[in-house]
């Protein structure tokens, strides 16, 4: 039961950072297609974070609907066209803000876990 709870904690933490990671990777590697993005996500986290493509693509489509990324179909030398993604200007602003938010959250969590935060006995 404890293992199941830890598994759930880890999944929740991974899910909570997924959008930020996707934006960060797209910013570094754009234009990038979904398959490359999913592989990059796994490789950059040393395969600690792996998500099913079936759940990643809807997120990309949603980011596009919100104007955070844009996509375009690109001809491929081998096989069908590939849909690639890049950040919009709005997306770059979102990434900057979200990265700062992540830094604040991480600092707060570490302070709480190490006891260096404000709460005292």
């Amino acid at each position, binding site marked *: 039961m404890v293992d199941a709870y830890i598994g759930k904690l880890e999944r929740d933490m991974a899910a909570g950072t997924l959008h930020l990671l996707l934006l960060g990777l797209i910013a570094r590697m754009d234009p990038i297609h979904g*398959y490359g993005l999913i592989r990059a996500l796994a490789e950059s986290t040393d395969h600690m974070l792996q998500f099913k493509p*079936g*759940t990643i693509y809807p997120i990309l489509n949603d980011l596009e609907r919100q104007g955070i990324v844009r996509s375009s179909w690109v001809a491929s030398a*081998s096989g069908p066209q590939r849909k690639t993604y890049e950040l919009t200007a709005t997306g770059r602003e979102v990434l900057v803000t979200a990265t700062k938010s992540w830094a604040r959250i991480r600092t707060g969590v570490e302070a709480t876990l190490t006891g260096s935060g404000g709460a005292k006995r």
Partner: protein
Amino acid sequence: MTNKILEEYVGRVRAELHALADDERDAVIDEMRAHLEDAISQRMAVDGYTDLEAATLAETRAFGEPAEIGAARGVAASAEPAVPPTLPTRPPRRFPRWAPYAAAGLIVLVAFVVAANAGNSTEYFGKQFLFGEPYQAKLNATNQTGMINESFVLPEGTDHFRLHALVEPVAGCVGVRVTDPHGSFVLNEWDSCGAMNHTITLDPENSGKIGRWQVEVRYTNFTGTLAIETTFRGWGSPPKTN
């Protein structure tokens, strides 16, 4: 050459996305297909897969179950799916309740999808993962030695069955033995200590292999990948899942 497993999977996903607008669904399918073709090519070119079927099964499993894909997009295949014009017609048949597959936590996923309706009969496609990622996790630990005995039932009405066994060792050994309901070995790699990639395709209705199958695995200090999965198809009433 058409990749039949890929096309079947795409068809199932398309059915799950039935509620999307046509152009949106087509765009989703096109992107998914491009991903899968890239991923399958990668498996075969770099990851050592020599069997297109095995590579396709691995990648479609990794992509996600069609029902999950539909759920992730906020749609459900609640509407009656279209009947593919190429489906053969079959006479209506009674079908027993599916036995629950509850193999002590080793079953990762059982998914049944109603692919089409043809009169009073329904063709369905079932995929059962016997040894999936949780089992691989166990065998990735070092110095793991032990045995697993598992079984599954091919019910009456099954007309197509495929079992795929993949072992990619990094260290140690895995032996696999699959026995049909009559006690005959259909796969016997019990003394194996190397890579394994077997696909068994049967027509159970004609070969009398309806019933309970046994899968035995023994592993010695094994680290690596072990995946044994079955796919089967039949005719009858949609089965209930647990």
